[in-house]
């Protein structure tokens, strides 16, 4: 068999495997618990998620999440329960549609302002073109060069 055909088949098989692996599928209970607890902040830790913390509070929160998942609550309902108790602070990534969401907006606004500034500068009129020296100026310059050469010479 032609070598190129073999390579093509291998690439097709690889692509099919990747598509199969990345196909949308229903998350398992454990995956959902991991997903939710990764987003929740541990209230007694320094910047740790509930999933990553070994504190008792984080453990109690994980138990609560697991219980709610088993009860058939959606991720949004479970997150809403924690938001009701702790506010948006409880999420490691603040929701975009909130005051905390400004943290996402400010860099975008700063970038846009920078682009406007740069575009404005680029569009501004160029520096004035150099003016051709007059015949008198050229003559004066030639005379000066000749004088300096004579002095050196």
């Amino acid at each position, binding site marked *: 068999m032609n070598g190129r055909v073999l390579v093509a088949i291998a690439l097709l098989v690889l692509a099919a495997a990747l598509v199969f692996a990345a196909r949308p599928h229903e998350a398992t209970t454990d995956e959902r618990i991991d997903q939710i607890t990764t987003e929740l902040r541990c*209230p*007694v830790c320094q910047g740790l998620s509930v999933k990553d913390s070994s504190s*008792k*509070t984080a453990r*109690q*929160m994980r*138990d*609560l999440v697991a219980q709610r998942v088993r009860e058939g609550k959606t991720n949004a309902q479970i997150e809403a329960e*924690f*938001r*009701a*108790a*702790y*506010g948006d*602070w409880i999420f490691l990534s603040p929701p975009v549609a909130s005051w905390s969401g400004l943290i996402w907006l400010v860099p975008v606004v700063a970038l846009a*302002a920078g682009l*406007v*500034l740069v575009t*404005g500068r680029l569009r501004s009129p160029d520096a004035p073109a150099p003016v051709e020296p007059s015949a008198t100026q050229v003559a004066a310059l030639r005379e000066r060069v000749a004088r300096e050469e004579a002095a050196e010479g």
Partner: protein
Amino acid sequence: MLARVLRIAVVVALLGLVVTLALAFRRDPHDIRTGTVNKPAPAFTLERLDGSGQVSLADLSGKVVVVNFFASWCLPCIQENPALVRVYERYRTSDVVMLGVNYQESRENGLAYVQRMGVAWTTVADDDGRVALSYGVFGPPETFFISYDGIIAGRHIGPIDEETLVTAIEKLRGQASSR
């Protein structure tokens, strides 16, 4: 023109920052108004620490309820306890109910603490921490003030003093009497 607009934008942004910081620094760091404040107090039924039955928040409806999360391993809880004792004595025959919720410890240790520290008000055990989570507790001590109509009117994080307790209670009693 563009440079002028940008200059104004920078000044406005700086002014905004200064105003935000000024407002933030004026706030009492113990008075955290997130989550449950101004919302109905999450309902709960917990067992008494001494095992002599259950206490339900619903049974305390129509009263001013002071819910204090505490633990024997929490030093600020020991620090605030004398103020709680004085305030309990002051209101024990009134429409004010104090309720201690033991936080993240064994009942044995919690009960020993209560007996040692002269805690005469009702204390309950939050064994699985669910009540603390529903109130958005960060850690003990935390005190919640629940109005006669079951709304969390205030929350104090950290050790509380007598004046803060009395002020918050009287404010709620005033609301109750002006109904």
